[in-house]
């Protein structure tokens, strides 16, 4: 089996289709033209409202074997995916391919529908139980396909994944189909993940529980692309958008890692007037954002922009004037949504603006630095965010690849041991993001600098930061907890991990046993 540029064995074909192996972060030259939906027209004073989702599905012509798409910005509060799948079964529609941006633990209820053949394929991130289920192998008609935020936009835009019916959960919509995530009684923040779906799908259904008079502003989803507006009692539960624990951690290890990460970007001279940075919503990222804000205040430094996952910590920096502009693709708490409503310098962006490989500009390419996480890293600086060391597929890619590829300095924050499992491996279980776009790995026991970035190593050393090689860190963790057994993988591919350009950086295989 051929090896790709990160040394992974990639089958030549998957589900009967030829595979392009990963060649390098920026190696692919895109070919062809953009894909679009069918041309349509309408007459003045039309009304697109249908009283029920079931009727909308019937009108859409959805039938066996088709592809339906969703956004994930209700995160763990999504109600739409399961509702649509349930109605499809009732209408006798089977063999569906799901193309969500991501699935969450709340979608555990999909499993019986997969077992009954209503859903047979998934192209999208799977966080939690659905991923664990798919990991068992033999569950889907074709391996799942995971893409980054930018990668999914690209796949829809170039026609790699054709969408038959796009379902767009809209907290606020007008009868003409303009929709956004900021208004209504259950706001979830930007729904801009679905913009590309609305552009390319054969049929677009906006689903809302808050119908407002024309025009709904801002029109994240535009009237010209929308076929129907379906009414439901409740489109989603905004309580579910709150990501993990949205509090700065008190864990000494996480705080130490966050502190070191901030000290590293300070030492590298990246904290400077006019900078742009990415802030995440994990425990370490939030703590790092907090430390960063304090240092910026102390030094009188203001950032030009920050990209989210937006949390109230970032909003606080914005309101204090430490950050001039927020580019917001996803809101992780109610404060972020209020801020989006109040201030135009807090801007909604699409994944296309954020991270599309097949484009002439990505916001992530303008980042000075970014803090990202991971489940594992290896001695080549490759990062795994998808699987655990036991081979279970439990997480999506999110913007990880897009940000790492774009930022001038990509900082991975990771404890050397999680539970009792060492995170620094000789080889990661799955490569999500290649070492060529990873610069610093910050652990509680010190910082490893990618040998490609010698100048960074010198800056950090000069500042007295504890530099360690990944091999030293790996050995130290192994001394405390031992090596542990690794899972044995069979031949069956349960999921494909795409690089953001559409090539295959790795595949996830079924676990057959233990060494």
């Amino acid at each position, binding site marked *: 089996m051929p090896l790709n540029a990160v040394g992974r064995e990639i089958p030549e074909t998957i589900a009967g289709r030829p595979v392009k192996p990963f060649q390098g972060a920026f190696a692919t030259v895109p070919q062809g033209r953009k894909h679009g939906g069918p041309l349509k027209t309408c007459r003045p004073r039309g009304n697109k409202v249908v009283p029920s989702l079931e009727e909308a599905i019937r009108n859409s012509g959805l039938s066996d074997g088709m592809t339906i798409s969703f956004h994930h910005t209700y995160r763990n509060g999504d109600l739409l995916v399961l509702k649509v799948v349930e109605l499809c079964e009732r209408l006798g529609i089977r063999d569906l391919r799901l193309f969500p941006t991501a699935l969450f633990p709340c979608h555990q209820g999909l499993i019986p529908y997969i077992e009954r053949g209503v859903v047979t394929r998934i192209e999208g991130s799977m966080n939690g139980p659905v991923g664990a289920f798919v990991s068992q192998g033999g569950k889907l008609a074709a391996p799942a396909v995971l893409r980054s935020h930018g990668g999914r936009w690209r796949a829809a835009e170039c026609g790699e994944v054709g969408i038959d019916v796009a379902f767009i959960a809209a907290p606020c919509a007008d009868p003409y189909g303009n929709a956004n995530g900021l208004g209504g009684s259950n706001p979830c923040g930007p729904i801009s993940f679905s913009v590309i779906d609305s552009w390319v799908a054969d049929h677009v259904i906006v689903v809302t529980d808050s119908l407002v008079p024309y025009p709904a502003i801002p029109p994240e989803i535009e009237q010209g692309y929308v076929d129907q507006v379906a009414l439901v009692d409740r489109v989603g539960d905004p309580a579910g958008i709150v990501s993990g624990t949205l509090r700065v951690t008190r864990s*000494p290890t996480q705080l130490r890692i966050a*502190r070191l990460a901030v000290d590293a970007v300070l030492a590298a001279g990246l904290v400077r007037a006019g900078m742009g940075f990415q802030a995440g919503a994990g425990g370490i990222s939030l703590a790092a954002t907090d430390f960063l804000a304090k240092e910026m205040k102390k030094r009188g430094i203001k950032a030009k922009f920050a990209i989210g996952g937006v949390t109230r910590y970032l909003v606080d920096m914005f309101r204090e004037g430490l950050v001039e502009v927020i580019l917001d693709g996803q809101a992780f708490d109610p404060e972020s949504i209020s801020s989006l409503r109040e201030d135009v310098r807090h801007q909604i962006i699409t994944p296309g603006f954020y991270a599309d490989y097949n484009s002439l500009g990505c916001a992530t390419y303008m980042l000075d630095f970014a803090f990202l996480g991971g489940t594992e890293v290896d001695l080549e600086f490759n990062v795994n965010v998808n699987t655990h060391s*036991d081979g279970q597929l439990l997480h999506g890619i999110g913007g990880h690849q897009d940000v790492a590829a774009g930022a001038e300095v990509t900082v991975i924050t990771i404890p050397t041991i999680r*539970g*009792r499992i060492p995170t620094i491996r000789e080889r990661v279980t799955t490569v999500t993001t290649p070492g060529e776009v990873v610069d610093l790995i910050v652990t*509680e026991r010190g910082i490893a600098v990618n040998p490609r970035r010698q100048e960074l190593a010198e800056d950090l050393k000069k500042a007295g930061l504890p530099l360690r090689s990944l091999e030293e860190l790996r050995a*130290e963790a192994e001394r405390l*907890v031992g090596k542990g057994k690794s899972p044995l993988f069979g031949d069956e591919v349960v999921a494909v991990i795409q690089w953001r350009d559409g090539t295959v950086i790795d595949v996830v295989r079924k676990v057959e046993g233990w060494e």
Partner: protein
Amino acid sequence: MELLREARCGSEDRSDALVCVRPGPGVRVEVTSKTGPMYEARIREVVGEVLGSYGVAGAEVRVTEQGAYDHVIAARLEGALYRAAGAGEAFHQPLPLARPRQGSPRDHLRRTRLYIPGNNARLLAFCDTFGPDCLLLDLEDAVPPEEKDAARFLVRRVLATLDFGDTELWVRINPLDRGGEEDLRVVLGGKPHGICLPKAESPVEITRLAGLLYELEGRLGLPWRVWIMPIIESPKGVAQAADIARVSERVVCLAFGAEDYTREVGCARSWEALLWARSQLVAAAKAAGIQASDTVYGELEDEVGLREEVRRAKALGFDGKGVIHPLQIGPVHEEFAPTPEEVRWAEGVVRAAAEAQSRSKGVVTYQGRMVDRPVLERARRVLALAQALRMEVGDAA
């Protein structure tokens, strides 16, 4: 070793392990690991090694672990064995150190002494990464009475296993007649640098502790002299502070504990109400030529208040402060840092002294003032601190 009864030790908390042992004909080990099959074999190996080192031939061992490190599992097993077999010499054997360790100088930097509860497996698992000047593993107030025995084994394993770099390692034992002596016999096997004695009220206790240390150092083959840090936390202790400070060469630092003092005196926990005790303590320490370390600051979220209290303590002459969370370490170290003016002064003094020596001049002056030994020593201390903080220091240092 023969097990007399069934016993258990540890917990099902994160990063901890619950180990149950009972007498059995042969050795049988059952492992339930949070990581599934990944570490079962390794955990059996750890259990086997510990049983072997205690010569246990008949035991049924059940380990339920929640991401516990090897040394935590080993310590929990030792705790269970202790409870099943009863106390004895076997539990006083030293452990080999996984990483070489040096003794610490009398005047080690002691800006922070970080308290870590001695039975908290989760915090202890990675307490090597916190970076205080002194790490203080606590067997006293932070450990409930029924877990004191278990905590000893955990603390000893942590001391023997982790690599603490430049951090000075201390154990706060219980008062000697309330378990402190057994604490010593176990934890010295992990080769700490010093022992903290709580509620110190008389030089007699210090002499007794020093005697025990002398005896155990010999028996355990400790390569250095174990220091003593008495914690003065009662009016009686304050009254005796001067004698406590100078009764033994091993005493290198007096620590102040305001909590108990405040209760006993019936005073407020305010700066004014504690000023006399603090001043008394600093004077007693300095008269004996040793360091003084201030009490902890309990408001974890209040960094401004912490910094203010450190500035005041430093101004009184304290060399360090107790901290209760790693978050407090950075601010305390920063506040104990000399100012740039202090560093320039210290460089000048040290340079003047060096020049005078090279020209065999008896009297050293700097900026028109005489530099005698204490002044020179103070200057050297300032420079050592500055260097520890990576401040710009000239050649003089």
